[in-house]
């Protein structure tokens, strides 16, 4: 009864337009006030303690790295490079859009910066060269979801912190669905290009190709440095984020000479304001998660699943559907803080490894980035392309199909999907 009233209040506050992070915190306040024995001061204590974790420091640092990439025009170099590589294929610019997102994903841990930075350049030029608006917006939004699937990834870091799963194992595993999603999207683009006769670029001369590669090389090294360092254990994910920022800063300032010291304060202000939005939501979700803890919701859920649905496959389907639903109105970070502790014990009992559960959760919530009404990447891309969210959604749906197919593949055939990562980490799936 209390639960239903709280959910109703949650929806009411959300619909009237109270900011979502504050809705979460207010529900925590109301819930704890009603709960017997629990002093209300625990709400603010938990907001503080929810942030008190070293892995979370990676969030602003990866956002800083992405901001530096964008303001240093380094993303432009990556775009030019990608066009040179896949441009000659039919629908070249759209392929380049996906490829550059895959490269960007290896540097950035979030997706929004990718949509904004790359979208600003590629959406107008795609429209100019004859793509319809929907495709320009759709490809940009959909491909930027790869940002959180290919490591580094902020959701993976948060998941690791919540479940004590190894970040390097998650990073290792994430490459598979990330690369598969990118390739799948390119296949869809190729099919559309043939049907709609999208343009292609002339093959660049070897000389041109070499010069573009030389130009992009320092930026292309970034993913190698970050992912390599974390997987081999040279540094932690948080440190990798700091290295990424430092490295992009150095190449932007001294190699490309596109960043000056004068740009730094603004970049820091942008980083602070943008990252504090998700992190405040995280703090609020920690407080609400505590309420779920007091009512031992995880135990109730675990009992329900063991008594009624004793099947790993069915559990996976329910998890996917649930996070698809949650992802339509909530950010990945608070959604994981609230619900991962609830579903983890069930997964363990059903023999699903924390890494696999993490992959499924993160990819499903990444889809939420492009589903209305609260799909951040879709909103950003639609704004750049100056079109309604409803119309852009119809463009993105085909690409969502690709991600869903990849998701089902790794969820139900994990031993095939993770064949290569398992060679490096035999306990990835237990």
């Amino acid at each position, binding site marked *: 009864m209390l639960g239903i009233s709280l959910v109703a209040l949650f929806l009411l*506050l*959300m*619909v*009237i*337009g*109270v*900011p*979502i*992070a*504050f809705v979460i*915190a*207010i529900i925590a*306040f109301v819930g704890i006030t009603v709960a017997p024995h629990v002093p*209300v*001061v625990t*709400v*603010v*204590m938990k*907001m*503080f303690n929810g*942030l*008190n*974790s*070293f892995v*979370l*420091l990676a969030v*602003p*640092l990866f956002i*800083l790295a992405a901001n530096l990439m964008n303001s240093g025009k380094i993303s432009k170099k990556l775009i030019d490079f990608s066009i040179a590589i896949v441009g000659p294929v039919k629908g070249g610019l759209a392929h380049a859009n996906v490829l550059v997102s895959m490269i960007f994903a290896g540097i950035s841990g979030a997706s929004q910066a990718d949509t904004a930075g790359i979208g600003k350049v590629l959406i107008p030029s795609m429209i100019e060269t004859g793509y319809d608006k929907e495709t320009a917006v759709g490809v940009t939004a959909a491909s930027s979801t790869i940002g959180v699937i290919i490591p580094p990834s902020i959701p993976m870091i948060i998941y690791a912190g919540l479940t004590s799963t190894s970040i390097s194992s998650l990073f290792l595993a994430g490459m598979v669905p990330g690369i598969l999603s990118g390739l799948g999207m390119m296949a869809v683009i190729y099919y559309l290009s043939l049907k709609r006769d999208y343009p292609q670029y002339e093959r660049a001369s070897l000389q041109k190709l070499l010069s573009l590669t030389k130009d992009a090389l320092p930026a292309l090294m970034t993913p190698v440095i970050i992912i390599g360092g974390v997987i081999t254990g040279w*540094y932690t994910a*948080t*440190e990798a984020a*700091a*290295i990424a*920022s*430092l490295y992009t800063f150095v190449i932007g300032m001294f190699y490309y000479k596109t960043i000056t010291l004068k740009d730094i*304060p603004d970049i*820091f*202000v942008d*980083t*602070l*304001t943008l*990252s*504090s*939005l998700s*992190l*405040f*939501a995280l*703090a609020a979700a920690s407080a609400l998660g505590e309420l779920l803890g007091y009512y031992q919701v995880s135990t109730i859920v675990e009992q329900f699943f063991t008594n009624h649905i004793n099947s790993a496959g069915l559990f996976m389907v329910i998890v996917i559907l649930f996070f698809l639903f949650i992802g339509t*109105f909530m*950010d990945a970070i608070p959604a994981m803080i609230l619900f991962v502790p609830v579903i983890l014990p069930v997964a363990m009992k059903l023999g699903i490894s924390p890494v696999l559960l993490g992959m499924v959760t993160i990819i499903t919530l990444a889809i939420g980035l492009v589903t209305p*009404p*609260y799909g*951040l990447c879709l909103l950003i891309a639609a704004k750049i392309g100056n079109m309604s969210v409803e119309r852009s959604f119809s463009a993105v749906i085909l690409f969502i199909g690709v991600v869903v197919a990849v998701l089902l593949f790794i969820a139900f055939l994990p031993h095939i999907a993770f064949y290569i990562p398992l060679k490096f980490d035999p306990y990835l799936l237990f």
Partner: protein
Amino acid sequence: MIKKFANLIESIQLKLGVFFLALFFAVIVLQMFVRYIGVSVIWTEEVANYSFIWAVFMGASVMLHRNGHFRFSLLFEKLTGKSKLFLKLTINLILVLFSLAVFYFGIIATLNFWNYTWYSLPNFKMGYMFISLPVMGFSMLIYELDHLLDDYSELKEGK
């Protein structure tokens, strides 16, 4: 009056937030460097963590003043005139109550744990960290009062 004060607080708070962001970035870089040269500095993790918390709370407050937190605007955009203003007023009143709660319970938390210490530096008090909570609550309260004042003057103009 309130508007001036709110703007002053916002500019101080933003600088403070950026300072803490830069601080924890520097501390993490330092931590990697000292490990590379084979020395261990034990306090880096705690300094980084606590600067991070300060930075987030300051940034989140500033974004409340700037109406930057994500929200559903569907209903809001559908409404016009009086009813839109009424909705805005309701939201801001709810946020005033929330800010008051964070301020009040933030003080209680700070008083309760003022004398707890850091793990790596037992001479450092936890009070300096927990006080970020009432600071956040107080600034949010000022910002929301500023928003309410805007709503009020809009209401008067409308009449």
